[in-house]
């Protein structure tokens, strides 16, 4: 049985291997996605983001258990940063999801960012499709702990869950600037600690400022550690799903996300073509020597490289 058939038969090893192949830009994995793409789209994708240590992994574990009670199949992509120095990474999100390892209907994969910015990795887009083909009903993407506005999760997910915690002090100001627009649901996690009401109020006040919108993101206090009010949070996530599906807005969101994905792929390809040309026959070396001697300038040097990929 080939790997594509095994994937469709819900073989975990096939699913795992395909994600690796994709991470390593393997042509065969891409061909499988091409062939099976029309079978995807039924999985619902929830992005989970928020500052480092806010409890994203613990919450993902709890939400998954809640979905499992309904028999839903869940895929989890947990992304942690790759070290820019070594290219290595320590991927530690699984620590909080140990109980899920043995559930045959849960698939967890840790991914390094591998140089990609925005809290996810380049292969995350493709990995979502593989989990979709594998038969997941829900897919969670846990981003790197980020707080700023540059969060690519919004370009991958159907619903974005922002995880905040009490007593964030000034951090919340910095975060608020970027997140108010991207979050569909807010969780104030660690509500077993003091200050959750204050954080909730701050978020609500900010939401009041753009009241004109038809959909208002709910703010839910939870404690992932104590497993409190996870059911309420899940309900709010699914309310958003239902809202998008009932209004057909889901198609707009997915189309917007696909635009980013297609451009991302094109960008990557062109960058690779430029790199190939630049390093072919030591062209970049040669040009940079000339530029350094002032025999050439950076702009015409660039034009020479770009001209090579234009035909």
């Amino acid at each position, binding site marked *: 049985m080939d790997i594509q058939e095994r994937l469709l038969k819900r073989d*975990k090893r096939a699913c795992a291997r395909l994600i690796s192949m994709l991470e390593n830009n393997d042509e065969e994995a891409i061909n499988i996605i091409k062939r099976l793409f029309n079978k995807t789209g039924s999985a619902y994708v929830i992005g989970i983001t928020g500052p480092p240590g806010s409890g994203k992994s613990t919450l993902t574990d709890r939400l998954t258990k809640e979905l499992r009670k309904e028999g839903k199949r869940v895929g989890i992509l947990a992304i942690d940063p790759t070290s820019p120095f070594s290219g*290595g990474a320590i991927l530690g999100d699984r620590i909080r999801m*140990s109980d899920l390892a043995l559930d045959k209907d849960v698939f967890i994969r840790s991914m390094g960012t591998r140089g990609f910015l925005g809290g996810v990795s380049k292969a995350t887009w493709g990995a979502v499709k593989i989990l979709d083909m594998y038969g997941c009903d829900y897919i969670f993407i846990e981003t790197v702990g980020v707080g700023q506005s540059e969060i690519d999760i919004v370009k991958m997910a159907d619903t974005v869950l922002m995880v905040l915690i009490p007593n964030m002090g000034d951090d919340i100001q910095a975060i608020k600037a970027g997140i108010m627009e991207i979050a569909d649901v807010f969780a104030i996690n660690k509500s077993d600690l003091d200050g959750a009401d204050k954080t909730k109020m701050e978020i609500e006040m900010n939401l009041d400022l753009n009241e004109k919108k038809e959909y208002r993101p709910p703010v839910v206090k939870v404690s992932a550690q104590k497993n409190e009010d996870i059911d309420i949070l899940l309900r709010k996530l699914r309310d958003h799903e239902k809202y998008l599906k009932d209004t057909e807005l889901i198609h707009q969101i997915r189309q917007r996300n696909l635009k980013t994905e297609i451009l991302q792929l094109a960008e990557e390809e062109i960058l690779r073509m430029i790199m190939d040309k630049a390093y072919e026959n030591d062209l970049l070396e040669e040009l940079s020597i000339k530029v350094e001697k002032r025999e050439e300038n950076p702009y015409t040097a660039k034009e020479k490289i770009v001209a090579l990929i234009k035909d």
Partner: protein
Amino acid sequence: MNRPIRVLVAKPGLDGHDRGAKVIARALRDAGMEVIYTGLRQTPEQIVAAAVQEDVDVVAMSLLSGAHNHLFPKVVNLLKGEGVDDVLVLGGGVIPDDDIPFLLESGVEAIFTPGTPTKDVIDFINTNIKRK
């Protein structure tokens, strides 16, 4: 190889010390590997399930509690049972010299006792990796 080697660093057994595991995790990361760390007190079943889903090249286990003669071979056998034959299984921790031959025979590829320079572990992985 133009992809990072993926290593599952796991702590089977009941002891609650993961300092050694964390040291090795950091050293492997600094050597350019992707280390999946699963935390304390993992059962062999959990370790193997994680190894499968993470599609790792190496399973590195560290154990101080003395249950290595039982737990290490169990992981090897469970991997075999899953049809996984391209993963390098390594053991570390406080392991008496007398136990090492048995462990190697049962399919653990190498045993690293305390004080082994992390470089030796990295070199061993780089040389013995089964998948290109």
